[in-house]
């Protein structure tokens, strides 16, 4: 596409007004309708493109091809319900779309203005809730980071500009000094969204104060926590916000060059970000003399190659330099000696996505949300035993109960909430007793969890907390870079002890050793990965110590998760249908036809196939 150079604010405003008039969000015009189809990674994986094809051919066959346009947007949030779409003008939301639904959607809704109820959101009592704004999941969210996701075409510069895109940059370049930009960020109270929550303006000030003609601004898009994908969604759904956020950061710290470090496992994010960078460059919003000012800035993408530790800032810097992805000791901090030994400022994708909105609407507006010490909003990735899993953005300080029950629709299958694992492998668990605490940096820390990147795995009584800790330790010990001893050797030993506990082979001395190890790994590891690796163990020990003790002294796993501590038995309900015996992969079940069967415990591998197969509730898991 040919993009004209935007050399002044007035050109930018002209483009904005023109683009606004034809914004896909509202349908292109009175006669024109638009279907906003989510083309985020999740919906694509669940078949958005197959549905799109079917929808297009339905439009063609029903003669609406020139009236209705299908527009691919970024992620809307409820990823597990995908593919999803929103009808432009009346904002009807449809989910779980299959290619076979296309004809009906076109004939009923687009032609006959009749809502297809079976594809809408279901509220209380399975009542259909067709309009986006009425749906609890969306209604209760406050979207700043995800403001454009699901609303604009991610690859369209015009569309981004129509939604106040680059207005923040224009404002900063023409009417603010770099110090004023930093001050606006200070007023906003924005803290780093990568996990640690370090105040962004302090980081920027440190880098600004480092005297060196060459400084770098770096964007950490090496999102690696299992189950967290807010950064991916922003890059896929609103890549220009990162380009603008980085340009603002560069202006503030005095940098002319930025790098976005994206993990290679995010091909769609990389593709869309590259399109955004190219478009911004063509429009003169990157490059030399941006908006006809003296400010020059450009961005390049660097791809990570799969190491979790490269999300740690100094390891990320090493990786950009082409070195082994290992952290460096701090001090010196990157603000003094970072990329290629030059002052560098690294912020997370979510942090950068906030910046344009803060500059455009003012720090005070942003600080109006959140708690006293933690301002603004935070995106969480809901997963696990929850009815609606997906991305949600709420003001910091929102209660866990609100997120899980009001937005997430409660526990799957009407189960009982046991704990929420926050902050991925570096975080911890929050038990039911703390459902009503507000989620902010300090509170989470005091409960042994962290805000982290915002991963939130909801668990019910079917989760074993020792097994959860073991899972995360397995992850961190596998992802340890091996540079420092406590992380390299200590996490491996912790994992071994946890495996032993899950196998019912541990003693109470092992538990003591586990705690000693956790303390040393936490206190002496070189980087954040090692320093936080014991958190899942420490927090589950803090809140669920009795489960550990049960595994050790009673050889019991109350959630029936740890295979060694579970036994399958056949009770008197057995009709001798032989189904379980046929399903058993190791031939551990025997018995005559029409007679009660038995499981040979010495052969049983505790796979649970018999339990799933049985139609008579004759298999007990104990």
């Amino acid at each position, binding site marked *: 596409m040919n993009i004209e150079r935007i050399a002044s604010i007035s050109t930018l405003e002209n483009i904005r007004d023109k683009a606004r008039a034809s914004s896909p969000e509202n349908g292109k015009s009175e006669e024109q309708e638009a279907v906003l189809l989510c083309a985020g990674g999740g919906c694509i994986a669940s078949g958005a493109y197959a549905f799109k094809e079917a929808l297009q051919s339905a439009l063609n066959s029903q003669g609406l091809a020139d009236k209705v346009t299908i527009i691919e947007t970024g992620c809307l949030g409820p990823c597990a319900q995908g593919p999803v779409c929103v009808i432009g003008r009346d904002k009807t939301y449809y989910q779980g779309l299959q290619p076979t639904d296309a004809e009906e959607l076109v004939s009923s809704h687009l032609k006959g203005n009749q809502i297809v109820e079976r594809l809408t959101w279901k509220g209380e009592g399975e009542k259909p809730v067709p309009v986006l704004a009425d749906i609890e999941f969306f209604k209760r969210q406050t979207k700043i980071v995800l403001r454009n996701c699901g609303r604009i075409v991610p690859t369209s510069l015009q569309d981004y500009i129509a939604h106040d895109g680059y207005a923040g940059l224009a404002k900063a370049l023409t009417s603010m000094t770099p110090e004023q930009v930093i001050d606006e960020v200070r007023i906003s109270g924005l803290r780093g969204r990568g996990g640690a929550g370090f105040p962004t303006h302090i980081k920027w000030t440190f880098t600004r104060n480092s005297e060196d003609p060459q400084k770098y601004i770096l964007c950490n898009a090496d999102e690696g926590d299992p189950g967290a994908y807010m950064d991916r969604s922003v890059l896929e759904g609103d890549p220009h916000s990162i380009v603008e956020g980085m340009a603002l950061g560069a202006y503030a710290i005095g940098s002319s060059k930025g790098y976005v470090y994206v993990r290679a496992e995010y091909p769609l994010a990389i593709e869309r970000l590259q399109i955004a960078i190219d478009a911004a460059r063509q429009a003169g919003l990157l490059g030399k003399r941006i908006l006809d000012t003296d400010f020059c800035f450009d961005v390049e993408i660097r791809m990570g190659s799969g*190491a979790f530790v490269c999300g740690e800032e100094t390891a990320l810097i090493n990786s950009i330099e082409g070195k*082994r992805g290992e952290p460096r*000791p701090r*001090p010196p901090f990157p603000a003094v000696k970072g990329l290629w030994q030059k002052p560098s400022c690294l912020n997370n994708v979510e942090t950068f996505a906030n910046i344009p909105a803060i500059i455009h609407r003012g720090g005070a507006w942003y600080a109006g949300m959140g708690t006293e010490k933690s301002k603004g909003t935070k995106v969480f990735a809901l997963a696990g035993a929850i009815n609606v899993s997906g991305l949600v953005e709420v003001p910091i300080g929102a209660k866990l109960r609100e997120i899980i029950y009001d937005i997430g629709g409660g526990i799957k299958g009407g189960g009982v909430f046991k704990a929420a694992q926050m902050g991925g492998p570096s975080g911890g668990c929050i038990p039911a007793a703390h459902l009503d605490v507000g989620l902010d940096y300090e509170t989470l820390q005091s409960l042994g969890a962290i805000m982290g990147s915002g991963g939130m795995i909801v668990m019910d009584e079917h989760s074993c907390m020792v097994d959860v800790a073991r899972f995360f330790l397995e992850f961190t*010990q*596998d*992802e*340890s*870079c*091996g*540079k*420092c*001893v*406590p992380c*390299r*050797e*200590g996490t*491996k*030993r912790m994992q*071994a002890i946890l495996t032993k506990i899950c196998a019912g082979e541990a003693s109470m001395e092992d538990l003591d*050793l586990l705690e*000693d*190890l956790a*303390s*040393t790994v936490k*206190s*002496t*590891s*070189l980087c954040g990965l090692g*320093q936080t690796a014991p958190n899942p163990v420490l927090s589950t020990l803090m809140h669920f110590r009795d489960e550990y003790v049960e595994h050790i002294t009673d050889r019991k796993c109350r959630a029936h998760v740890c295979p060694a501590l579970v036994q399958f038995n056949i009770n008197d309900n057995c009709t001798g249908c032989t189904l379980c015996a046929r399903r058993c992969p190791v031939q551990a079940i025997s018995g005559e036809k029409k007679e009660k069967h038995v499981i040979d415990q010495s052969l049983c591998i505790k796979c649970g196939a018999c339990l799933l197969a049985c139609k008579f509730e004759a298999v007990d898991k104990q």
Partner: protein
Amino acid sequence: MNIELNGKIYEVEPGQTILEAARSHGVYIPTLCYHAKTGGVGKCRVCVVEVEGMRGIVTACTVQVGEDMKIVTESPSLRKHRKMVVDLLLSAGHHDCLSCAQCGNCELQDVAYSLGLTHPSFPQPERKPEDLSSEFLVFDETKCIQCGRCIQGDNCTVINDTLGFAYRGADTKVSFDHDLPIGSSSCVQCGECVQLCPTGALTDKKARGLGRNWELEKVNTTCPYCGVGCQMTLHVDRKQNRIVRVTGREDAFNEGMLCVKGRYGYDFPSSPKRLTHPMIRKNGVLEQVSWEEALDYTATRIKEIVDRDGPDVFSAFGSGRITNENNYAIQKFTRAVIGTNNVDHCART
């Protein structure tokens, strides 16, 4: 600048690390990965100390001293963490001090001893065979603590780029090229890695079983191979009248570096083929003569030949194994006494 170390005030140099400052005043902070030549990398985490006002505990090898910095190098919690870290290292390999060539000269052994560690607390991994594929080095992976000193020395001092870390996490290992046996790798066997190794992971093959560190007399000398004059220490078994091994002197200009000849070519002093006295071939047979006779004979013959055929039939050949002064004397003698420019040298190119 002043710092407070364990409650006492010391004067230190700005820019020094806490470790350097403490060592300069004789305050012991145990370390494993630090070496003056390879610097502080913060890998082993044994040198952890507490600094007032700094978050958590920090490594003494990476943090620079600051004015009036208050540092504690010994406390029950520091000792506990150090003990755990060293215990993890002992457990990760097979540090068989009884048979190890580095026994008595091993930094890991010293640290374990000072912390009162008697045995590894965790199950040890499987044994792996030593790499005996090269002429002069032995690599025992199970004694390696991945401190990276050998790699730093190889890549930054001798700039050979043979050594590097391979794999990741608990599988991390020091590898020669792409995990090749040393004998098949690009290693030139200068022994810099052996010199820097804090444990018995990298040792000298020729010295195996020939003498314990404490039995050997250390004799400082200059390498006889070339005019650079590297300083080295001979480890001599006096009873056997034998050089067992050679190490570079780290306090000298060569900072411990030696080449493969200097470090491993030490057999010649005790070679039976070595010339130990002057000889003159008489009637086709070499006969032992006195220095006076040998020098007189040589001087007379040179004079005769030069007088008869002119100075240009004479040529002198210097040597890389003698000093600059000796080489100077050779060319001076040739030009001024004999009167010819026929001077050459084995290291001329």
